[in-house]
Structure formats: structure tokens, C-alpha cells
């Protein structure tokens, strides 16, 4: 890790000093255990702030859209793919972004660690190789990092950024054998009513804080459909019907674009597993149109495109 951090800082410093970018967007240590926070560096002397470890969970692609200056972005596989989607959708000029790719073995899901510790508060945590060392009042534990990774990381098939300008460190082996749709398949196997009750239960927790929308690099619409007032399509209350529709439509809007970075699930303060919806959308697009988002800078999103031979078994 330290080696990676060192080389990341060197790259950042070089990009800044050679004026290739005006700003580096990366991670710095946060104020809480297992917490990093987005960091914006525009002076070479500040590159020492930059860090890299498995707690770097924020999706920095969010900060690339709508920027005037040239930026270098520290990007994991998922982040890099999202930047690629934004470039392909003409939201970010390619020449304004330098993707500093970091191979990633998965990020730690704090919620998982916290639930393991139940009511005990973590006061200090460090990630040392394959272990997470957590300390609190009167306890100290060594946890195996792989047991606490985010769900989306467990099935990630692009740990190495498929698109990048500079790579930090060396490529890591990809997971080729995993089935990324197990969760979705389990849900599909349920009866419709069971699924309905399941999603009712999950989404009834929603408090409409829109963190899932705010954190998503693909939600760059100037006015979101739920904020439209003339006409007012769907309500903004926490009524169950409105809430479900919000999440359904948001899932539709990221169809063929979502790369399963897992940010929406991670930020959800009421622990809604939004990946259940996002993964389904990904599966539909993959099965119907054989498309995976974020692997090319040119390919148009599949929902803005068509082929004459597209399947239409559902049409009467």
C-alpha cells in the first residue's frame, strides 16, 4: 500500500508541476475510523495528503462532471468506467480529464464492520494488508478484510481500470469466475407477490434524502424528474407508491449506464440495498443487448440506440 501511495503522489506531483492538470481529485484521511474523504489538490506541496487504501470508497467520478479546469482523477475500476460513460455521453471533454487508474482489490464496507461489532464503537482502524485492525474502548480486533468488502466489489470484474491514462502500481488479477447476478437471480426465483413485498419492505425505509441520486455520477440532469413541477410527474412525499416509483425510474434512467460501483447502496443512510435494482437493470441490458457500460469512450448508451433484430418476444 505504502508503495502505491508513494507512486500515486509522484504521479500527482508530476501532473501538477508539468501543468498537465490544474487539480488532482483523490482521497485523504477522514475524521472517522475507516473513513476517507475526497481531497482536492491544486498545489504540489499538498500531494502528500493523498492516500490510497481499501477505505477509499467514494466515487470520485461524481466530481468530474461540470468542471472547467483540467483534472486528474484517482480512479478505481468502477470510477474509471463511470468517467468513461460520462465522456461517451459528452458530459466531460476527454481532453479535460486524466484518469489516474488504481487497481483495486475491493473497498471496505463500513456498515459490515459496524454490524459485526454490534453496539461497540470503533475508535481507531487501520488496514494492514489483508487485515483490518479495529480498536475501541476495551477491545482490539483483527478482521479479515475480504469478509468486509462491499457487495459490489465481491463480484467486480473490472478491478483494473479498463480505461486510464496513467496506472498506479501494477495490475491485479481479475475475478473471472464469479457470478455477479446471484442476488438478482435469487429474487427472480421468488413469486411476484413475494418480490413485491420484499421491495415494499426495503423501499418503505426511504426518507427521500436523495443521497443515492446525489452520489451517482450518472445523475447529472440539471432538473431531476422528481423535481419537475410542470407537470409534476410523481410526488415527493415518502408515500410508498411515490418512493417506489422514484427508485424504479431512477433505475430506468441508469439502464445501460450503471457500472455497479455500489455508491448508492453505500451512502444510503437507511441501508436500502439499491443494488438489487441496479443489478437487475444491468442484467436486463446485458442479456437483451449484450452491453456492459463503461468499457469504451465511444459506444453510445444502449437505450439511446437500437438494432432491427432486438428481441421483441414481449410484444403482442
Amino acid at each position: 500500500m505504502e508503495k502505491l501511495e508513494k507512486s500515486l503522489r509522484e504521479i500527482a506531483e508530476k501532473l501538477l508541476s508539468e501543468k498537465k492538470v490544474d487539480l488532482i481529485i483523490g482521497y485523504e484521511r477522514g475524521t472517522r475510523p475507516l473513513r476517507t474523504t475526497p481531497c482536492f489538490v491544486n498545489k504540489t506541496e499538498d500531494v502528500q495528503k493523498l492516500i490510497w487504501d481499501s477505505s477509499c470508497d467514494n466515487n470520485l467520478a461524481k466530481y468530474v462532471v461540470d468542471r472547467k479546469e483540467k483534472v486528474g482523477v484517482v480512479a478505481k475500476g468502477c470510477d474509471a468506467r463511470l468517467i468513461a460513460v460520462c465522456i461517451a455521453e459528452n458530459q466531460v471533454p476527454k481532453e479535460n480529464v486524466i484518469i489516474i487508474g488504481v487497481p483495486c482489490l475491493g473497498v471496505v464496507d463500513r456498515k459490515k464492520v459496524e454490524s459485526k461489532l454490534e453496539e461497540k464503537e470503533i475508535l481507531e482502524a487501520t488496514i494492514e494488508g489483508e487485515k483490518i485492525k479495529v480498536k475501541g474502548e476495551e477491545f482490539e480486533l483483527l478482521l479479515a478484510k475480504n469478509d468486509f468488502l462491499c457487495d459490489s466489489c465481491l463480484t467486480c470484474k473490472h478491478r483494473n481500470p479498463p480505461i486510464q491514462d496513467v496506472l498506479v502500481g501494477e495490475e491485479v488479477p481479475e475475478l473471472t469466475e464469479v457470478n455477479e447476478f446471484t442476488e438478482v437471480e435469487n429474487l427472480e426465483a421468488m413469486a411476484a407477490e413475494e418480490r413485491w413485498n420484499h421491495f415494499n419492505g426495503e423501499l418503505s425505509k426511504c426518507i427521500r434524502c436523495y443521497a443515492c441520486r446525489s452520489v451517482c455520477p450518472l445523475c447529472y440532469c440539471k432538473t431531476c424528474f422528481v423535481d419537475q413541477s410542470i407537470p409534476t410527474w410523481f410526488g415527493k412525499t415518502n408515500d410508498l407508491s411515490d418512493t417506489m416509483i422514484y427508485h424504479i425510474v431512477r433505475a430506468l434512467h441508469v439502464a445501460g449506464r450503471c457500472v455497479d460501483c455500489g455508491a448508492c447502496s453505500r451512502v444510503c443512510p437507511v441501508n436500502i440495498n439499491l443494488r438489487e435494482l441496479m443489478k437487475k437493470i444491468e442484467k436486463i441490458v446485458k442479456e437483451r443487448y449484450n452491453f456492459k457500460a463503461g468499457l469504451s469512450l465511444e459506444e453510445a448508451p444502449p437505450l439511446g440506440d437500437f438494432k432491427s433484430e432486438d428481441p421483441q418476444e414481449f410484444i403482442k
Partner: protein
Amino acid sequence: MKWKVIEKSKLPNLIGELAREYEIFAPVDRKSIGSFERLASGSEVSLDSRNTKKPPKDVFIPQTETLFTYKTGKQEVELAAPQVVIGQRVVLAVRPCDAKSFVLLDKFLSSGEYKDAYYKEKRKNTTIVGLACNHPLSTCFCTSLGGSPHGKEGLDVLLQDINDKYLIEPITERGEKLIEKFPWLKEAERADIDKAKKLSDDAEAAVKSKVSIDGVDNKLDGMFDDPIWEQICQKCLNCGICTFFCPTCCCFDVLDEDGKRIRIWDSCQFSCFTLHGSGHNPRPSGKERMRQRIMHKFNYFVKTHGESFCVGCGRCIQECPVNLDIREVVGAISALPTDKRSDND
């Protein structure tokens, strides 16, 4: 009135008796999100856990609230105001920081020329039973805002966990009346009170997070156009987490839906919050919206109501998706040189 004690095992009995007369709201762990909910049964209460994830404000300001209903005919409209309070309420196990939020909300919503009828009516009919914090978290900074883990502000009764028992301390007349309903409660002994005192002192000392709030309000006066807002807001996503989880944030939107005039929680962090009909927006970007939040809490509210609009509960620190830590923000402001004051006063 003397202090009382109750064995922990007897608490469900007390709740059961209370429930005959009152609507009881208490921390429950539904769907693993701690929140204050109307109790269905005494066994549902979770008093041993940390403070609830959601603040108790929605006992008084539900996320969606009907202001009135209407029926429209051709040339006729019939209005009906809802019955705000069905009966007397008890909110159980409110932490001192959250109890203080009620005091602040009272200052804002129940004072001045216009009073928020819905909030005030509910407050009037509610007895607040607090639960002292014996184990503050690392994100707690109530002591920096004049509070304390065993503070009494805003409470009618204070409970304190003293291992196998709760010590019951009446604070207001209303609280005494509530306790009088349970003549079977035992009187507290000297040892109980001593133990509570010791736990309180330990808890107070355990609040390690300190935010230097002194003078921040004055300093903010001249900081409206300071470049610091640009820096602070950089990573902010403008989601509504900090405001929705804040025990004092109470901004709302009013709209009509299916024969009802309702109000719903709104957030100063959303761009449509201040968007004019003309398309003009006085707070067009994250910078202005973040500034509004900080200014409102630590400057505007101090000017209008005499204290900060923050109780130091730490929820926004725990929940923020990008770790934008309000302690750091206030710290950065208070660390700025003092000559920043504007001179046009």
C-alpha cells in the same frame, strides 16, 4: 419531589401502565434503523443501544403532515382541519442532546407572531422522558454547545441507567405528575444517586470531541463572501442527509396532493429549495447552500434566538456520505484570523 428508581425488569410494566393513558413514542429498532416510533408493545423498546439513528423530531414534525383536507365542488370548497393531537403523549428515552433540540425548535416554531399550530399543539400535550447518556460516542460534541450527556434542558423527567436500575429524576411539574402515577416506584437511595453522579461525571469527561464555538457567530458576520465556502463545499454532494438527520433542521415544503394540503420535509441543500418561478435561484450552487446551512446554524439563529441551532448530536458526522465533518467546518472558521469582520456595521 424525591428521586425514584425502577428495576430494569419492571420497565415494561411501567410502559404498559403508561400506554393505557398515553400514546408512547420510544426508540425502537425497526428494520435496523433506530428511530422514535409509536410503541405497539413495551418489549419493542430498545434502551440499551446508542442514540437512535434518526432524530426524534418526527414525533412533532412528521416527514409528511396533512395541514388540512378539502373537497372541491363546482362552486364550493369544503375545508377540514385535522385533529392534531389525539391524546396525551409521552416520548421516552430522549437523549439530552435531542431534548435540547426541542427547546430550540420551540424557540423557532412556537414563538413570534405566528406559531406553528401543529407543532405547538403536539408539544403542549407531550411529556418528555429523557435518558442520560452514559457512553457518548466519538462523534458527540454536545458539551461544546452548552449541553451535557446528562443535561436536563427540555426534559420533564430524566432517567439514568445505573446498571440494574434506572434512576428517575423529576425535572418539571409535569414530570412530577407523571411519576406520581406510579406510587409503587421505590425511592432512590443515596448510593443510587452517588452512582449516577459518578456515571454522569465519567460521561461528561468521555465527550472528547470539542468544537470551539465561542465567537464563531461573530466571525461569521463578516464571512459571507469568504473563499472558505468554496473550499468547504467542494466535496459536498448536496444530498439531504445532514438536514434530514439533524434534530433541529425543520424546513418544509407545502403542496397539494389528492384533496390534502400537506407539508413535507425539505432541505436547504436541494437546488429547488430556493428556485424562483422565474428560473432565478439566489442559491444556485453547493457553495451558497452549504453556506446557508452553516450560517443558519451558527450565525442567523444566534442573532434571532440567542444560541446556535445545533445540539452536537453528531448525526450529520456519522451519516455524511463524504465525511464532510461539521466539527472541521466550524473549527476551520474559528481558526481564521479575527480581523475578518465586515466593517459596514
